[in-house]
């Protein structure tokens, strides 16, 4: 029987969503044009050639190395692209993803990337054409909601603040805005430089939908212990206790 990785324990909706994010088996909710994703990232203009930091690997004459022979380079590495990044911020108010789960998603599903997890933001670095692909996957899939998540290269602190009246996550640089038609528009790139034209990101999730898709345990949503008043905690808590116990013992008495 083929082995199925068990990424995360628990029977709560959050546990199920966390497993789904880690497995990479994500639902596609929208299809943003690639040029719009590239414009929002702001590293190069859509259609422009990829600048490179070294010649393509084939022309370089690599040393005789078994690891290099075993590992196929990503398209970006093979072409010698620059390393570039995309950074996302997710609101505490039931955003579909959170920095740790974006990183798990990246580390498990994206080749040749370097995910970085911080309290309020999550960055993935990779070769330029690779990171563009990974960013589009994130932007299109259920890890992203246009009101509760946004690409922010700097000034990310809206994640921990209350939402605005229209349900958007606060952004000091006003990179996205809610249009009168109910769609969210990207008006600046991820570092706050205005775009030539607005990018329509689509409609945000309803509150109920966001609560259904979230990977955040919250007392006013789904608690990590599972159903309140149940005789037994959810498996997620048991597994957490188990890992904590083993780690503490191992930490105190390495053998």
């Amino acid at each position, binding site marked *: 029987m083929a082995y199925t990785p068990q990424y995360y324990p628990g029977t709560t909706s959050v546990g199920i969503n966390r497993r789904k994010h880690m497995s990479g088996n994500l639902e596609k909710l929208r299809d943003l044009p690639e040029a719009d994703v590239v414009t929002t990232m*702001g590293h190069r203009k859509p259609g422009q050639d990829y600048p490179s930091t070294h010649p393509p690997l084939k022309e370089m004459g690599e040393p005789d190395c078994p690891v290099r022979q075993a590992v196929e380079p990503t398209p970006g590495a093979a072409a010698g692209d620059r390393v570039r990044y995309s950074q996302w911020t997710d609101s505490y108010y039931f955003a579909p993803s959170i920095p740790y789960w974006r990183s798990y998603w990246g580390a498990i599903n994206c080749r040749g990337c370097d995910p970085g997890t911080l309290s309020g933001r999550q960055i993935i670095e990779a070769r330029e054409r690779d990171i563009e692909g990974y960013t589009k996957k994130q932007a299109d899939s259920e890890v992203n909601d246009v009101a509760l998540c946004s690409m922010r*290269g*700097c*000034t990310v*602190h*809206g994640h921990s*603040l*209350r*939402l*605005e*009246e*229209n349900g958007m996550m*606060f952004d*000091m*640089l*006003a990179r996205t*805005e809610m249009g009168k038609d109910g769609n969210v528009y990207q008006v*600046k*790139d991820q*570092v*706050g*430089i*205005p775009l030539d034209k607005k990018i329509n990101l689509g409609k945000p999730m309803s509150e109920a939908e966001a609560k259904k898709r979230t990977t955040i345990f919250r007392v006013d949503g789904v608690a990590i212990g599972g159903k309140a008043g149940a005789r037994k905690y959810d498996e997620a808590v048991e597994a957490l206790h188990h890992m904590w116990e083993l780690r503490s013992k191992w930490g105190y008495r390495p053998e």
Partner: protein
Amino acid sequence: MSTKSDTSTVQVEIIPSRYLMPETAQRLLNEIYNNGGMVRIFVQGPNMPRAVPYGPGKGIPIDEHRDMLVEIGGQAFELTVKVGRISLELENESYFKGLEAACERALPFSFQIRRGKFFHDRMTVSDYAKFGEVEDKRILGLIDPKAKRDKLAVLSDESVTCDK
């Protein structure tokens, strides 16, 4: 044993469950102002800079944050924060119920309102460094000591003064 005086001031904090758009902030502040009995009021929230403060886009103007004028009690001033918390002091207990009703009228979503101690009444070292000796003690507790420039709006029955 001390008895609470009916005439002692009451300090109140209002926390809406969402950040307020300038129009809602204006509506709420006007309702609060019209309720009367206000000694002082302090509006707080995350800063809305006029230009990108750092990063590759540093210095680029943020047009969305310009001209956020609100008019309260016939006086206009410019909002520099997204209103998220309002602390105020009332002349006495009798204005509290009206204040609560004013919030209910102005806010289309839930809010918390509570009484407590929200303004300091003795001068701190930072206050002294910023202002020196002050005559009007109402100014104490109305200033963010970390602010690089003074952000102050004192509302009184006579006038609204705004010092930026």
